[in-house]
């Protein structure tokens, strides 16, 4: 792999997009919220709960139910997106819900619901991973008991180079591989893993290694954001 390879936006292969920004409390009305921006991709997450379950029959006597809705707003993409859920958003919502259920301590909140709303404001690839990164932050911001945060990013192959955090132009390259990934740093459990594209196992090994390193960088930023907002509580 050539070290000199420079990407269409000037990044090195192992670099996250610039800016990579995390902001907490972006929806003051919600119990917790966060915004994640990776280059031109912007996602907001907000949490309501633990709250009463409606409809009541969905209630679980032993734990909270986690409900996640991922949505792209109509002008988040070049061609206006038809409002409302579609198959892609249903799948992504479920995958994010599954990933989060590994860290949220649902047994602490029996007979309640925790709702997580994820809105893609601007899409330039990597919206599901930005959404998952934002979701775990919004949950933490809501003060919900969690075992860890979940950092998430994608890695892949563009024009024969293994790269981190693909933008849309890179993702659309013929022969590109895109591998959305998330893991729990404290346990090394992989909680999101998908891939599109044609790859050898050796390449996949390199790609997930790069994705993991990217997650480690994002994890540091997540912790920093939490400490900045809540540091004074943590010290007490």
């Amino acid at each position, binding site marked *: 792999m050539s070290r000199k390879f420079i990407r269409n936006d000037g990044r090195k292969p192992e670099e996250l997009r610039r800016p990579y920004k995390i902001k907490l409390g972006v929806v003051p009305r919600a119990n917790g919220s966060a915004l994640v921006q990776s280059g031109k991709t912007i996602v907001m997450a907000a949490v309501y709960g633990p709250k009463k379950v409606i409809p009541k029959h969905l209630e679980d006597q032993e734990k909270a139910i986690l409900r996640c809705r991922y949505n792209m707003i109509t002008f988040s993409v070049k061609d206006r997106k038809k409002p409302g859920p579609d198959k892609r958003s249903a799948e992504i*919502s*479920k995958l994010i819900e*599954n990933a989060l259920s*590994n860290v949220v301590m649902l047994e602490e909140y029996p007979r309640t619901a925790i709702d997580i709303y994820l809105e893609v404001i601007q899409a330039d690839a990597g919206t599901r991973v930005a959404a998952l990164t934002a979701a775990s932050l919004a949950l933490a911001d809501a003060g919900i008991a969690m075992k860890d945060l979940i950092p998430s990013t994608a890695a892949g192959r563009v024009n024969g180079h293994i790269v981190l955090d693909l933008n849309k132009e890179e993702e659309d390259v013929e022969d590109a591989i895109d591998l959305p990934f998330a893991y729990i740093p404290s346990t090394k459990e992989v*909680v999101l893993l998908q891939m599109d594209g*044609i*790859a050898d196992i050796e390449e*996949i090994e390199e790609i*997930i290694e790069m994705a993991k390193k990217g997650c480690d960088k994002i994890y540091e930023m997540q912790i920093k954001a939490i400490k900045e907002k809540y540091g004074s509580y943590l010290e007490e």
Partner: protein
Amino acid sequence: MITHTAMEFIKKKLCEGERLDDRKLKEYREIVIERGVGENAEGSARVKIGQTEVIAGIKMQVGEPFKDTPNEGILITSAEFMPFSSSEVEPGPPTVDEIELGRVIDRGIREGKVIDLEKLCIVEGEKVWTIFVDIYLVNDDGNMYDASSLAVMNALMDVKIPKLDENYEIIEGEFNGKLPIRHKVVSLTAYKVGNVIFYDPNAKEEEVVDARLTAGIRDDGKIVSLQKGMEGSFKYDEIIPTLRELKERGLEFIGKYVQ
């Protein structure tokens, strides 16, 4: 539904490397493939893995291409659990489980470039073939992902393309060759419970599964899609060894079941 006690028992057995039906952890049940199960479909297949049964059918229609791919045919995949396939299914609009199954199988076919979609262009920018791939779960005794993938690949290979008249209407009963298939792909799944990775669960075993990992394996040994499904996780260090196993099994299955 099975009882909590039964679940604990099945889980304990699996974690000790044993299964209810005495199979080994990596052993599949008998697989039976049959093509041509619906006369009105352009192609179809039935796959049984043990008592799990899936039928897949292909319908072809002349339609308009997408604006960004004016010279390519269109592939649309969906999956439905028949209401009698298990006691858990309620009739109604597609559930997220049905959507996920359809999308995972679709990704294997699409990303693996199984069909040469450019050869399904009739008039550039105006008329192309739309291929509807429909998956029906008939009886759910576990591992519907692998059964669906084998059914779809066999149904695609069973397709006879209808002949068109000068107005691009389908001529009943006349055909114009097979689908332009470039590669064969099967999507196979590894299942995890506790610290054990195993294959081909039956419905009872599936109740205790924590996570699954499905990979699309192409006839040239490439991996063309991945999906970690369900709530649980795979350890970071388990991913690559699992992919190697899936690849080996995938190539074996393509040779055995997709001819």
